């Protein structure tokens, strides 16, 4: 087994001592099958007693070893090493020290609803799942809180600039898992709704990066559906969805003009007049659809009875 030397650049930062992060280069003897955690452990034991990094389980279960390698968020316990790695903490989260980010206190992270008076007692009866449902539920409930999805979420990053606060994919996938088992899911759904799930841009960065393939974006979609069915989804998103259904049943294609009216109302849509005039000048203004499209009847036929909203 020949051993090379790996050159590694690590972003070091101690907020108590440093003004800003600094990049430090280290050299580590390479061994067969090495993972990034091996590199960090080697540095800690031989050269850098205060290197700040976390690990615990080695098996992608505890979520503490997540960080960026060459800009990509990974779990270092199972990430193979490469030449010229740049190791940095997860993006967008407060850095505690070096490669350790703030994973929040346990209750806030694992059971944020415990702080609220969701009147758990007596309402936490759980339904036994059908055998066919178990795999799906488990797939959601196995979130390890690695924070990778939160770290790549553009909507969460916008929170810092003020305005409505988005709860983030991590919290929302946890809520979807809770909701699935509750005999009375409404308090958890309303709690999820307070996380402004319609601020999700549906970019799928979370689903793409989740190291356990749990698909948080799809979980947000599922929460959206549950709230929509119960008429508890926020008004703009609700109107948006209903408008699509109406447009498609009437005219096959989306009536963009009608969409804005449905969401903002005839009076509210007036604020778009300057924009509309501009688009009219550029011959880009969508026209309202009058009359039914030829294929509308066919579409109505196949979609009838499938509307799941009472």
């Amino acid at each position, binding site marked *: 087994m020949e051993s090379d030397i790996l050159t590694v650049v690590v972003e070091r930062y101690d907020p108590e001592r440093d003004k800003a992060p600094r990049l430090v280069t280290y050299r580590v003897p390479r061994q067969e099958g090495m993972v990034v955690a091996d590199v960090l452990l080697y540095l800690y034991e031989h050269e850098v007693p205060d290197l700040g990094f976390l690990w615990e389980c080695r098996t992608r279960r505890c979520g503490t070893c997540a960080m960026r390698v060459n800009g*990509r968020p990974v779990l270092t316990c199972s990430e193979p090493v490469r030449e010229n790695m740049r190791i940095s903490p997860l993006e967008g989260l407060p850095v505690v020290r070096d490669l350790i980010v703030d994973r929040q206190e346990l209750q806030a992270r694992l059971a944020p609803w415990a702080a609220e008076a969701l009147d758990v007692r007596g309402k936490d009866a759980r339904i036994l799942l059908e055998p066919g449902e178990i795999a799906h539920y488990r797939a959601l409930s196995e979130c390890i809180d690695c924070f990778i999805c939160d770290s790549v979420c*553009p*909507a969460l990053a*916008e929170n810092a*600039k003020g*305005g*409505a606060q988005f709860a983030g994919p991590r919290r929302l996938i946890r809520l979807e898992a809770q909701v699935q088992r509750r005999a009375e899911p409404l308090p958890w759904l309303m709690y999820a709704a307070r996380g402004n799930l*319609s*601020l*999700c*841009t*549906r*970019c*799928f*960065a979370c*689903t*793409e990066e989740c190291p356990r393939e749990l*698909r948080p*974006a799809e979980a947000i*979609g599922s929460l*959206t*559906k549950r709230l*929509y*069915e119960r008429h508890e*989804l*926020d008004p*703009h*998103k609700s109107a*948006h*969805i209903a408008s*699509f*259904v109406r*447009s*498609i049943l009437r005219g*096959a*294609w*989306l009536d*963009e003009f009608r*969409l804005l009216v449905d*969401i903002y109302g005839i009076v509210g849509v007036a604020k778009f007049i300057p*924009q509309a005039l*501009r*688009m009219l000048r*550029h*011959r*880009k*203004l*969508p*026209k309202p659809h009058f009359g039914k499209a*030829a*294929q509308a009847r*066919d*579409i109505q*036929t*196949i*979609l009838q009875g*499938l*509307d*799941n*909203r009472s």
Partner: protein
Amino acid sequence: MGNRYAYFQGCAARQSCPELNQSTLLVAKRLGWELVTLECGACTGARDLIEAQPEMAMVLNARTLALAEAQGLDTVMTVCSTCTITLRQVNKILKENSAALERSNQELSRIGLRYNATVEVRHFLWVLIADYGLDRLKGQVKRPLSDLSVAPYYGCHILRPSDVLGFDDPDNPRSLHNLITALGGSPADFSSQADCCGFHMMTIDENRAARHAGGLLVDAQQQGADVMVTACPLCHISMDSWQPKSERVMKRKIGMPVIHVAQLVGLALGFSPRELGLEQHIIRPTEIIANYSR
């Protein structure tokens, strides 16, 4: 394969981005593709239907795919990233889950249609690169885009999730880069090139969406791009039609023209900016119109 494709315009190309449809038709004809427009198609329902009304989304899109199949076409070509992801998501389920296919076919049978899951859904960009080929495209270039620094903006729905899309690597996408190079231009790499434009948040919180889109434009500008190219008309609406809003919200002038992939290709093939509908854009691509209008 071959060069005959079902053309799914989607809603934006038919309404608020007519220049996209226009330039797609011109380019396809020049390259010798036969596009069979699915006039009787329907909106995919975007993300709304497949999330909130999944049964509807399955049947509605199964119909579109069945219409293409019934005409002997094996590829539905899209020009919008959201259409691409939605149709591909539905198609994937129909191909992998026979119970779901049967349920959809039960509804389709009421209008005399049946889908046999033989169609593929591919974006115009993919057809161009994988079917037609960049080398062959190079041979068709009449006016190389030299001196044009083009920011390759991918956005999300043409890349993620990769098990639905799978044409390009979300962590290091290259398709637009390679296209720009093949056309003689210089790709202006920028760090947010695969970030979301925020379109689907627009009717929820316009200021937030505008701030988001503006950030991408500024990033591209700071990398020296003359123009941004996008594969999705919804991204185009975010970043062209709504650019004045971004400028207002961010309190800064941006003035970055944003053009469609088909327009970029069309320019290199020798079509005039006017033919390609570049004059319709809200942010006028002044330099391009000046330099490419001979």
